[in-house]
């Protein structure tokens, strides 16, 4: 029982880490806004958007939601299901490419 008590108490952290993450989130949000401001286009735009998005999401989950300090059992229960979402995204990309192909095809060839 004493052990678990001790474990509960380690959930408090120094204020500095929160302020750092907070500041980083502001900076990253500013950067992702700048992506739109300077109207980057094409692959550069998409990769920058994704990089800033994943960095922000990672910082929020790891430090604000304490996943970085959390037990592996919980971390694994939460993160493995994300592979199912990734699979779903790949399936739907194939699907919309097929849909747009058939649409263009029948608009050109006719029904």
């Amino acid at each position, binding site marked *: 029982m004493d052990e678990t008590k001790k474990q509960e108490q380690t959930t408090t952290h120094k204020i500095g880490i929160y302020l750092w993450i907070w500041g980083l989130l*502001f900076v990253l949000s500013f950067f992702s806004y700048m992506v739109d401001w300077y109207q980057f286009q094409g692959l550069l735009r998409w990769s920058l*958007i994704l990089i800033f998005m994943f960095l922000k999401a990672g910082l929020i989950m790891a430090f604000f939601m304490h996943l970085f300090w959390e037990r592996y059992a*919980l971390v694994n229960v939460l993160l493995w299901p994300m592979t199912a979402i990734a699979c779903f995204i790949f399936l739907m990309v194939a699907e919309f490419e097929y849909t747009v192909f058939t649409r263009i095809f029948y608009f050109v060839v006719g029904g």
Partner: protein
Amino acid sequence: MSDPKIEGYVFKPGFKGMADDTGSDQTMFKGVHWGKAMMWIFLLSDTFIFSCFLISYMKGRGSTIIDWPNPSEVFGLHVFGVDVPLLLIAIMTFVLITSSGTMALAVKYGYEKNRKMCGWLILATAIGGLTFVGMQAFEWSKLIHEGVRPWENPFGAPQFGSFFFMITGFHGTHVSIGVIFLFIYAYKTFKGHYDEGKRGWFTTMKGDYVEIEILGLYWHFVDLVWVFIFAFFYLW
């Protein structure tokens, strides 16, 4: 049910701890408050809901052959004679991140049993959330005035409106529910319910500052979802 008082259980970090936690024929997440474990499970299911919305948006946008409305023009604002792209959305993003930061600090002060600081920070979070919902209402009414409907809009592909209202509406609902709970929890914190261990309304569970952390998980999740909506809906 996770009971913090499991006899003889010693928490170990890393994969060793994970094996102990999942494979000992007892309960999982030993020592974790059941409310916290359940909030995580809820957030996981909510992740799937929002993923389905965003994936259907991807599919809708990818499979139309009509041009998609340019978000940086549609969501731009005209201030002081200048067109600023995505201005309102940028402010909303900063407001939500600010409120996420105050919530993280509220959780920290809650665990330090600093009642006043914790209460004020939760109140600040609630006001941030309320500001966000207010700006979203403004954005919605602006777009509705401009003729955006779930079935048509003057800017481009007609699917735009249905995805916009569905995704931001579902997120806004989450924010609104969060704001209501933030005000309730701010009240409970100031009244000292978590210091005295006073019971809640629907539970025989004794009040504890872990409840602030559970509320914090929900609030950070709302911010997390906004990160994805901001990237995919507004910037893409």
